[in-house]
């Protein structure tokens, strides 16, 4: 998904950056107005905001300790006391799912930061320097892209070993090529523009030009990618935890809860329903916001 978006975004990058240069100040205003008018964007943003609040306030609002076992209350159906029911050791699933939001949002953000920072740096470097550096970086990216879907993440886990932290690295590194491609494309379109040339003519160094002049202008399409990337990272990380390569029980990570719950799929529907629903709603919210951002940044779709 991110892959297909990147192709489109690379095309848009040029036209977007043109606008960004001429009226950078109003650009944000235009995008914000576009977003405000988009119902899906507002729904997505609301979902996300509520979730971030829940995650931050989790220790205060959860009714039970998410790790506290209570064998006498095992596998209870949802009730007034236990909104999402209890698991096989009597832990309150509502508390666990809320705590799961802390983990998943963090995993999504950190993975994207790893992939985005490395990817964007490499992309600007490749586009700005050109020649051998460009070739080396882009051929490496082609190579990484030869590994489909989560296979690259799996290969990295094979090297680093299972665990939640390694999953973040794996998912982050696996997403590098997408950012690199888009950042490179935008940089290529920018580097011979007048404002870059004039910066150079007054003696600005390469690092300064890259940071102060190129980076701000390549960012808009990359922000869309990163937003959608958070959704993808949350999905992948939950999947890896589900197959036992990420977070380990008793960590209340959504994928890890699902692994435990599948054993009780006959007698306790709530055990697998709520954590899965939490993943879906989170990812849905982020995707709605990301899609809307993408539309808002595309001048062709402006109304």
């Amino acid at each position, binding site marked *: *998904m991110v*892959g*297909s978006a990147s192709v489109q975004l690379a095309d848009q990058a040029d036209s977007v950056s043109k606008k960004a240069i001429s009226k950078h100040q109003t650009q944000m205003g235009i995008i914000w107005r576009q977003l405000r008018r988009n119902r899906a964007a507002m729904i997505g943003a609301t979902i996300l905001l509520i979730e971030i609040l829940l995650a931050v306030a989790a220790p205060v609002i959860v009714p039970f300790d998410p790790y506290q076992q209570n064998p006498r209350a095992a596998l209870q159906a949802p009730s007034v006391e236990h909104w999402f029911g209890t698991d096989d050791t009597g832990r309150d699933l509502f508390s666990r799912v809320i705590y799961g939001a802390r983990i998943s949002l963090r995993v999504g953000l950190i993975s994207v930061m790893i992939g985005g920072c490395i990817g964007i740096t490499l992309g600007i470097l490749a586009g700005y320097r050109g020649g051998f550096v460009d070739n080396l970086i882009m*051929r490496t990216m*082609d*190579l990484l892209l*030869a*590994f*489909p*879907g*989560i*296979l690259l993440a*799996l*290969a990295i*886990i*094979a*090297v*680093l*070993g*299972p665990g939640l932290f390694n999953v973040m690295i794996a998912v982050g590194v696996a997403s590098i090529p997408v950012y690199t491609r888009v950042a490179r494309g935008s940089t290529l379109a920018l580097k011979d523009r007048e404002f870059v040339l004039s910066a150079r003519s007054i003696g600005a160094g390469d690092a300064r030009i890259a940071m102060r002049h190129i980076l701000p202008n390549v960012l808009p399409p990359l922000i869309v990618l990163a937003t959608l990337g958070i*959704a993808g990272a949350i*999905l992948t990380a*939950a*999947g890896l935890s*589900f*197959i*036992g*390569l990420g977070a380990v029980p008793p960590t209340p990570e959504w*994928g890890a809860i*699902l692994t435990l*719950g*599948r054993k009780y*799929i*006959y007698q306790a*529907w709530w055990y*697998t*329903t709520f*954590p*899965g629903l939490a*993943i*879906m709603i989170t*990812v*849905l919210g982020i*995707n*709605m916001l990301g*899609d809307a951002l993408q539309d808002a940044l595309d001048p062709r779709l402006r109304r």
Partner: protein
Amino acid sequence: MRYALTRLVLAVPIMFGVSLFTFLMLHFVPGDPVAAMFIGQGAAVSEEQMDKVRDELGLNDPLPVQYLNFLKNAVRGDLGNSIRTNEPVSEMIMRNLPATMQLTLASMAFALVLGISLGMLAAIKRGTVFDTAAMFIALLGVSMPSFWLGLLLISVFSIQLGWFPIIGGSGWRGLILPAFALGFAASAIIARMVRASLLDVLRDNYIVTARAKGLTERRVIFRHALRNAAIPVLTIVGLQFGGLLAGAVIIESVFTRQGLGRMLVTALQSRDFPVAQGGVLFVAIVYVFVNLIVDLFYGVIDPRISVD
């Protein structure tokens, strides 16, 4: 023909790169890779045993020699033996391949049928409830974790209704639910692509001409628009195929199906390095081939495409 040859030649360095990458996997393992393989084995492992494995893996040779040997063996189909079972990795792959291919192809077929139908519906009825509904389904598709969808399907169709086996057995009945769970996300992406490219094409002059000639709307869509809208969709299909192949890793675990995915996951969990390495290499090479075929294919259907 020149296009085909160029594409083929371009795939060669990628193949080399992929093999180099998988070869180096072992050498990136922090610390002693052989010791890492035995972590979690339970029983204490003697130094001699580790030396034997080191020797088998050729870890005592210089790096370039190791890579050449790895490549030479891989080309002959020798990917080493499993550390756990001592079974040759290539045999394990061949044993698990049919089930995974079946699953991947079935979910691709499903994704195509659902994705193209939804995308066409949305494009033709643009701006109506149908469009909104189809695109909402597509949004659900990309937001729903495949493994959770799998669990839901098992709980509704296998446990409540008893229509399908709970544990993915052989035969088509065991294939339907996993194929659905795996293919749903791909169908969503295909639906979006079909909608976008159909809407793009429908604005073209030759469509206006076709309509002006008095052709029925059905003929305009099926004979004129769809054919040209198919080109970008085909690219996505190639990319999605790889996604499905890799996605099988998780879905096979959900439905406890035999296959490459389960083989890989088990290998990763027990740090059975030769199996993990061989599995990753194999899937990546298949993916490179599939994309090569897709590229060649649209060189055929779209004569404008050529390699510069």
